[in-house]
């Protein structure tokens, strides 16, 4: 159990974090009644804030829990997270500024707004929107698993640990829901800065202490299974297909796109994304915690006794750092789950409000739209919380990989749509359906219709990540389908002029049309016009 000074620091820093969350409403103040204000931070995020805000998607429970636990349990294979975070940003550099430009010109809040107009297809838009929301839920659930693992290690030895942990989580989520409600994305952005400073400090502190006092990597690898030193050749196809598929998928998630659309201008968006791989060095360190665990007997026994790989990082922290240091580092990991959960819930709420609720009630006012998004974001959080309390922890991690399989199926509509208008909306919708159905089927089949333990499928080329296989089918159907639709003259053109994708129109009048309450601020239009 964490010492009392550690717990005191944890609580004090959590209060500071909550204060920042509420203060966010005043930060670069805007009219929070508009959805672009509440859900996109007024689209005034400069390069540094963007770096941290999108970087917040990098340091999530995926990094603290799923990856170290994978490296601990399976070795080098789970280091796929490193090439994944390197390559995904090349994709962002190419696609996100273009999406930002068309969104600024046409007042889009989500990628689905773009898809709907680009292919003039409401069905396709609805399909992409629902995929985004469904894929986001297990990702949020994973954040909660991460926070749960912090509390479990912190309160080790306390009677009724499970109940205490659940109560603490519920309290944390109520606070989170309230400040997201009042501050929107701005609150999350300030929290993200605090989280990243603390995380970086903690990771470096732990690595230094382990290298100096615990025999470093030499001891760790000597005690880890011998096969962990590199990749068994049978794992090579798994490795590259996992990192390649994940790299393709990240910027299709609503929270990643939401972060990019909050940028103040195209050029700082592009540069901030380009430099994010450097930020990934911390992720590589955290992945290595899965190996370092083997050199730290006390921490290893915590993980082994509980048979829960998710405890890897908190167990190392509490073992190697002094009480106060562990308090800070554990809080870092705790809000490291909380901040992304808030950003993801906001993104899912933007999507549900703008692309589902507004489709059903087109007469909703901008104020009503924002109110709906606020309530939906709160609801989404508690759905995810209920999900974690009802299904097992390992299940949540695997469902996140299944989320990757689903979200990858929106790639042809979103990414290819940015570069070509040739594809047809109906063909893309059928391709999407084929991708989703084949993806789910392959996942079920590879797990023999039992418990979800793998998202890899055995092909003649070895085991491959199902996201890529399903995406291949999806793409094939979309291309062949488009050819058929065009030959039979059933094709319907999109309604976005090519010019809107190339550069920001001066004044961007249409941006104001869809968000009449707050025309985009003079400062940001000025920046956009100069670009």
């Amino acid at each position, binding site marked *: 159990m964490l010492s009392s000074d550690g717990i005191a620091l944890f609580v004090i820093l959590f209060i500071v974090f909550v204060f920042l969350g509420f203060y966010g409403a005043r930060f670069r103040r805007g009219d929070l009644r508009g959805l672009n204000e509440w859900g996109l931070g007024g689209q005034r995020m400069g390069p540094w804030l963007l770096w941290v805000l999108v970087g917040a998607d990098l340091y999530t429970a995926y990094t603290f829990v799923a990856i170290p636990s994978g490296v601990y349990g399976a070795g080098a294979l789970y280091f796929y997270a490193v090439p994944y975070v390197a*390559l995904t940003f*090349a994709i962002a550099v*190419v696609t996100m500024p273009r999406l930002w430009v068309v969104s600024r010109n046409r007042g889009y809040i989500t990628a689905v707004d773009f898809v709907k107009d680009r292919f003039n297809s409401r069905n396709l838009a609805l399909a992409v929107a629902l995929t985004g929301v469904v894929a986001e839920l297990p990702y949020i659930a994973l954040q909660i698993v991460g926070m749960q693992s912090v509390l479990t290690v912190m309160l080790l030895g306390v009677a009724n640990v499970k109940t205490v942990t659940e109560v603490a989580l519920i309290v944390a989520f109520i606070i989170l829901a309230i400040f997201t409600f009042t501050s929107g994305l701005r609150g999350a952005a300030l929290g993200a800065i605090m989280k990243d400073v603390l995380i970086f400090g903690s990771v470096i502190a732990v690595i230094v202490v382990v290298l100096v006092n615990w025999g470093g990597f030499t001891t760790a690898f000597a005690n880890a299974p011998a096969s962990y*030193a590199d990749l068994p050749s049978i794992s090579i196809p798994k490795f590259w297909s996992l990192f390649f598929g994940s790299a393709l998928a990240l910027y299709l998630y609503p929270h990643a796109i939401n972060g990019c659309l909050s940028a103040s201008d195209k*050029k700082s968006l592009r540069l901030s994304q380009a430099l994010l791989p450097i930020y990934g060095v911390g992720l590589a360190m955290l992945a290595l915690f899965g190996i370092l665990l083997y050199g730290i007997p006390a921490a290893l026994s915590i993980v082994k006794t509980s048979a829960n790989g998710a405890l890897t990082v908190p167990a190392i922290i509490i073992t190697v750092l002094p009480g106060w240091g562990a308090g800070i580092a554990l809080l870092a990991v705790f809000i490291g789950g909380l901040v992304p959960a808030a950003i993801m819930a906001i993104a899912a709420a933007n999507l549900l409000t703008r692309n589902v609720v507004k489709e059903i009630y087109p007469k909703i006012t901008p104020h009503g739209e924002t109110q709906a998004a606020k309530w939906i974001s709160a609801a989404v959080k508690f759905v995810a919380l209920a999900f974690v309390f009802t299904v097992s922890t390992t299940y949540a991690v695997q469902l996140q990989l299944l989320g990757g399989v689903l979200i990858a199926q929106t790639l042809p509509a979103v990414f290819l749509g940015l570069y070509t208008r040739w594809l047809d909306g109906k063909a893309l919708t059928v391709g999407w359906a084929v991708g989703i159905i084949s993806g789910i089927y392959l996942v079920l089949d590879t797990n023999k219709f039992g418990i979800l333990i793998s998202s890899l499928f055995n092909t003649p080329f070895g085991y491959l990540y199902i996201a890529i296989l399903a995406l291949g089918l999806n793409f094939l159907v979309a291309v062949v389908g488009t050819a058929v639709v065009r030959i039979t003259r059933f094709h319907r053109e999109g309604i976005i002029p090519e010019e809107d994708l190339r550069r920001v129109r001066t004044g961007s009048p249409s941006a104001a049309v869809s968000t009449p309450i707050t025309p985009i601020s003079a400062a940001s239009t000025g920046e956009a016009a100069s670009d």
Partner: protein
Amino acid sequence: MAVRGWQVAAAVFLLIPFVVYLSVPSYNMVDPKFYGLPFFYWYQTLWLVLSGILFGLAAWLINRGE
């Protein structure tokens, strides 16, 4: 639309890390180690920094060219 020199350079900078990371057998080895860390791990971590530099150059070229 003619392809410009800076566009080719930016594309090359963006693609190099893909070639590096997708050539898995080229770095799937234990030695040389770095402070006890096998080559497989430190090489990929080093390429995070190099990728950031290359992508940064590409972004700079595109930003200047547009």
